[in-house]
């Protein structure tokens, strides 16, 4: 899992939407909030190569769009221990 911390300052307490999309534009998450100091953790499953887009939309200002690229590389390591007993 990859954890993203999303915070948004909304001093007037207006309603806003948080939308999360993947690289294909598929919507992974959407919800409506009105927190003045919004903070939420998003735990997303990771793929080997991924792109995630976080959108904050309040209906008045331009959308806040943050795009992240996720790259995962794997390797196997061997640990050998010799113990005398």
């Amino acid at each position, binding site marked *: 899992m990859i954890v993203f911390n999303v915070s948004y300052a909304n001093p007037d307490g207006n309603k806003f939407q948080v939308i999360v999309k993947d690289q294909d534009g598929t919507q992974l998450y959407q919800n409506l909030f009105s927190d003045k100091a919004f903070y939420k953790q998003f735990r997303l499953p990771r793929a080997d190569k991924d792109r995630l887009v976080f959108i904050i939309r309040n209906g008045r200002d331009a959308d806040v769009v*943050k795009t992240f*690229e*996720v790259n995962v*590389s794997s390797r*196997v*390591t061997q640990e050998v*221990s*010799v113990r005398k007993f």
Partner: protein
Amino acid sequence: MKSAIANIRKVAVFSLFTLTLAGTGLVSRANNGNEGNKGTTGTASANTADVKYIADNNGGYLFNVIYNNISNSRFSVIILDANGDQLFQSHYSDKQFNRKFKLAQPEEFGRLTFIIRNLADNTVQRFEVDANSRLIEDVEVKEVK
């Protein structure tokens, strides 16, 4: 029949382990001296053994077995697998024993036991070798502007 089984076993032993003759040590012996006496059973002996793992760049496993056989006694080197099955056994009487053993089937390696038994004073020194594989994932997250 018995002899056929013995032959098969012998072949299996030699296919599992390849004894490489010790040249000049690839790995210098550390911890020689007193530490080698730890873990011995039987009568007190100044004969000390050591087993070291030598990393092999080709993905194999190489073990350096050193036995400081000051009494010049006859001794055996036995190697067991994780199930306690004997992979190798041989007798020697080298005063400064220093040989490398290469595991021929590293993919099956989980645990090995090296036993060095001095046949004169019946001291036994055992070394347990464990191999663990770990999957390491490097996750890189970067913001795309």
